[in-house]
């Protein structure tokens, strides 16, 4: 097809498509929209987004949040500078000493697994990886073939 034909076709199709009138919206659309708007309007303010909260509540929320943040920061500051902070840190470390034991157990298990994998001949590992890849590809092919067959059947009954 020449460029001239292409341009002619584009112009003609454009004219035909633009001549199409709008389709009529379903009669239920208006009722659905109004019902949804009524439902949203009936929600209490605390179930709506922040922008819909009353001004006094928004101001109160901001002030409360600021106060809470200031209290937390100053509390941490006081705690770190106090004489009991070192004792508290020791106490916390003692309470969570089981974490160190868990880390050592995990490291030992990791060493064991590494030694076990090292003892397996590489050919076996490659074979296992190949088998898994083959199974995955087969499943993907079956899925794709089934989907395309069903889609084709639906589009061409």
């Amino acid at each position, binding site marked *: *097809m020449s460029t001239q*034909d*292409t341009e*002619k*076709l*584009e*112009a*003609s*199709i*454009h*004219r*035909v*498509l*633009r*001549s*199409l*009138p*709008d*389709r*009529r*919206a*379903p*009669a*239920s*659309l*208006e*009722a*659905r*929209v*109004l019902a*949804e*708007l009524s439902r*949203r309007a009936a929600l209490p303010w605390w179930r709506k987004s922040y922008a819909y909260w009353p001004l006094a509540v928004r101001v109160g929320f901001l002030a409360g949040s600021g106060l809470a943040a200031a209290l937390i920061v100053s509390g941490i500051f006081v705690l770190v500078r106090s004489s009991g902070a070192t004792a508290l840190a020791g106490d916390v470390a003692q309470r969570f000493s089981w974490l160190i034991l868990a880390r050592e157990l995990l490291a030992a298990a990791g060493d064991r697994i590494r030694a076990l994998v090292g003892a397996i001949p590489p050919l076996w590992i490659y074979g296992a990886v190949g088998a898994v890849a083959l199974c995955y590809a087969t499943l*993907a092919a079956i*899925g*794709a073939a089934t*989907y*395309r067959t069903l*889609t084709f059947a639906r589009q*061409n009954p």
Partner: protein
Amino acid sequence: MNDEHPVQNQDSVRGPDGDFTTFMRKYQDMVFTTAARLVRNDAQAEDIAQDVFIKAHEHFEMLSSSPAAGGWLKTVATNLSINHLQRYRNRWRFFSELGGRSDSEGEDAPEVEFAAPDTFFEQVDSDERLAWVEEALAKLPDHQRVPLVLYHFEDIPYDEIARRLGVSLAKVKTDILRARAALAKILSRGGDSLASFSS
């Protein structure tokens, strides 16, 4: 516009909600048509149209006095429809595009046979002819129909369509050309070809 509208009580017709009802009646066909031509499913198009008007209600103060309200609604309807199609496409793209010839990119332009374009829309004003075109448009596969609608109805340029659909520029051009060719074939042969086109 619809002649049959749901019965409204007097309270909802007066005041801002009443204005919104009038606003919605003015634009609902356009919004629904925009969505329906893109998603090709009336139920989904109605859902999208509902979302569009919910958003419009949130901005009604601005839209009620704006001469660009129609454009705003069309853009939102188009964006929501594309989002809807993208979600569906991402869900199924692996299986549907695996080895699929129809979605291949950058192919040469197809050979198209059609009657002289000056003649095939001679009778296009007849209702029957318009119905053929609408039906033929609905039967195009998504990857051809969506860019065609965006280009010819929404006046979005090729590169912008490619960006919004996340495909290459070459694919957009090829798909639109094929879609035009398919439509031209139907129009040049008349209604009889519609059945063969769908098979």
